[in-house]
């Protein structure tokens, strides 16, 4: 936006034509050309027109090496018959694997399962996160300390959460099951049915990540200007109206942001599922990420898993665009 205008490049080009500069060239027979072109190159590179490019270059290079190159590699593989475990060289396959994946009912089933888990978990995260943010919005003694208690779950590893929640659900030893048995007389076998197992996963995941949503919402809440609340109070707005017209608009964008990040992350949910249910009972809680893991790493159907991943990427990109569309609309409104 605010580009400073300097034209060092042209100024220095003038300079190099001065006698002093040409002297320099004749003085030394070996390095001057290199030295000069080096310096020119340097000046070219760091000229203001290229400042933006220079600033982002390290990041782009790093992302290219560490993310984009491997992605392109696997993208390429998705068009070949290839098994990572096999010594046979890849053979061209065209869109074979895309067709295969898109027509595979198993993939659609796994996507459906994933969607169910994502929908429930993200919804729960939004609700819990929002409720807790409202709770912490006001100032009260020990607010800092209590807030830390609530933030802790997201600092735990997936392994820790998975393993301990599985223990909580365990019918004999699990504290949840024992609590249930105390009231209902029989142990809780939550993981025995599809929906029980889905809820088991959703509870663990939502517990872990609601604090994330809470932080974002809280940031929105504390930025609502006081005068709006005062105005709402003067206008004798009901709690709900105040929430809808004053609070929510300030939080909506952040809520959408949380929604996007959590949807993308939950879409990839793997460890918690793998540890708590291993996809069971049967395959009823097997998410798409678990499925990709199996296909890629246990079955070594490298091409198929690559093709599948790219379809997933497409789905996520669509979701993201949708999200960005909403965010942009919001920014225009304000």
């Amino acid at each position, binding site marked *: 936006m605010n580009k400073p205008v300097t034209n060092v490049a042209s100024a220095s080009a003038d300079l190099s034509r001065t006698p002093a500069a040409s002297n320099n060239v004749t003085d030394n027979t070996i390095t001057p050309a290199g030295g000069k072109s080096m310096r020119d190159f340097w000046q070219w590179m760091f000229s203001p027109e290229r400042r933006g490019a220079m600033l982002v270059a390290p990041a782009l290079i790093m992302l290219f090496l560490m993310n984009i190159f491997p992605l392109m590699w696997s993208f390429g593989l998705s068009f070949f018959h290839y098994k*990572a*475990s*096999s*010594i046979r060289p890849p053979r061209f396959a065209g869109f074979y694997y895309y067709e295969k994946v898109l027509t595979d009912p198993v993939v659609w089933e796994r996507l459906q399962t994933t969607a169910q888990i994502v929908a429930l978990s993200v919804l729960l995260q939004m609700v819990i996160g929002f409720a807790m943010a409202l709770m912490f919005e006001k100032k009260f003694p020990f607010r800092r300390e209590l807030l830390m208690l609530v933030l802790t779950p997201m600092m735990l590893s997936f392994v820790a959460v998975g393993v301990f929640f*599985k223990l909580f659900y*365990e*019918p*004999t*030893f699990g504290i949840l099951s024992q609590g249930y048995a105390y009231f209902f007389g*029989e*142990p809780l*076998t*939550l*993981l*025995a*049915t599809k929906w029980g197992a889905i809820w088991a996963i959703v509870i663990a995941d939502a517990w872990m990540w609601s604090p994330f949503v809470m932080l974002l919402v809280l940031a929105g809440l504390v930025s609502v200007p006081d005068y709006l609340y005062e105005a709402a109070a003067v206008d004798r707005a009901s709690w709900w109206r105040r929430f809808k017209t004053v609070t929510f608009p300030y939080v909506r964008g952040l809520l959408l942001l949380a929604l996007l990040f959590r949807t993308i992350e939950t879409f990839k949910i793997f460890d918690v599922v793998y540890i708590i*249910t*291993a*996809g*069971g*009972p*049967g*395959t009823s809680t097997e998410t798409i990420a678990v499925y990709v893991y*199996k296909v890629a*790493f*246990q*079955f*070594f159907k490298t091409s198929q898993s690559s093709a599948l991943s790219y379809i997933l990427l497409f789905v996520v990109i669509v979701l993201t665009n949708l999200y960005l569309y909403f965010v942009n609309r919001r920014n225009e409104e304000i």
Partner: protein
Amino acid sequence: MKHKLNILGALTAGIFATGLAVTATEVSAKDIVINMAGPDWGPTRFLQEKFNKTYKAKSGNNVKLVFDFIPWPNFYDRVAASLTSGEKKYQMVVSDSQWIGTFIEGGHFLKLNKYIDADPTLQAIMKDTHPAFVEAYATYPHKSKNYYGFPQFPDTKMTWFRKDLFCHAGEKAAFKAKFGGTLPCTYAEWKDTDWKTWASIGEFFRRNKGDKLGDGVAADDFYGIAYQAGKGLDFSSMQINAFIWQHGGSIWDEANEPKAQAVGVVNNAASVKGFQHYLDLLKWSPPVAKTGQMDIFVIQELIMQGKVAAIINWAGLAPPALDPKNSKHAKQIDFALTPGLRGKDGKISRWDNIGGQPFVLTTWNSDEVTMEALEIVKWWMSPEVQLDFAKNGGESGLMSVMARSDYNSIRPWNRAHVELLDWQKDVWHVPEFFEMLTQQQEEFDKAITGQKTAKQALDAIAKFQQDLLTEAGRIQ
């Protein structure tokens, strides 16, 4: 090999390595490092510790064995990633028996026939290794004469039971009164125990909280029997295969490739009967059985914490059960043969699925490294080391060691282990094993959690395997 942070990075490391190689050739005793991938648990830690303390290479080289201890839950992931990516990091690998086909066909595991043929010591070791181990741990194609590995930790399943309950006079009498048979206590009584008695045990020891149990009362709901019924890894196939084989059913037999079929074999009447038998017995197990999560660790926990009277589990998991730090009944747990199916002749069939891990060599090493690795194999398979291993929680693979008069008394489960070896078979070793295993576990789980009948599950398994193996060219 220490990985230190090096500012100049890979380049310096490369030059440094070249420099080392040059200096190394100048002295006679070479530094040779054998990196070995292994799961992080007792049997491999023992190998490392024992090696560090006692191993001296005969060649005079300075041989170091460096274990990469990888947590069990992620062991396969780590090894598979390393091998298939061409990382070439490991010179030796502790493998699971099922994997070897995958990595042999991938060109990662070294065929040992030519080394065995050239070395009488190795020949003697192969001869002395129990045939069940050779078959399961060394051969590919399965049961062929191509050898690839040696037993690192051979494992079998056996019955773990609570002496204080099974040998309790009052309980014994009550059992007799109710079921007419003997509540097994001694080794001989357990040897005569079939699945019918096992079911009676399950029914007999089903006590509610507060009921009388042994000398006291049950502090919690108490159950009679449990065996593995878990969705993860192979935590149900290993037990279900036993039932299928004992009932005369079969799994797809890769030794008869390409004639062997899956449909009509995997789902034949005997197999279905065997699977149904397995399912029927689950009703006497703790409630976790209903969730399809009753894996080998859960049943271990159940007996250690006093929630169940008897289980069937691997010997490899037995040491903690005798450790009072982990087990509430460390003093009361004993081991016996697994129950089996009594035939018309009155004999008990005990076919079961073998466990444990072989270790193998990789293909990308210099001859020198390979020879040193084989020296380590010979050292490990030597009777003294094997005996010491058995004394420290392991099991020997050598028949000569197992035949020693004191072997059975080294650990309380050894007698059963040795006797059961003749009943061991293994699942498939073909590279498709993971797909077959995974799909089978899913279908078994559906039957365990009541979504399918035994027949439906086995039909689905047979069809899947038939299609998969036909596509792979293994069934014609």
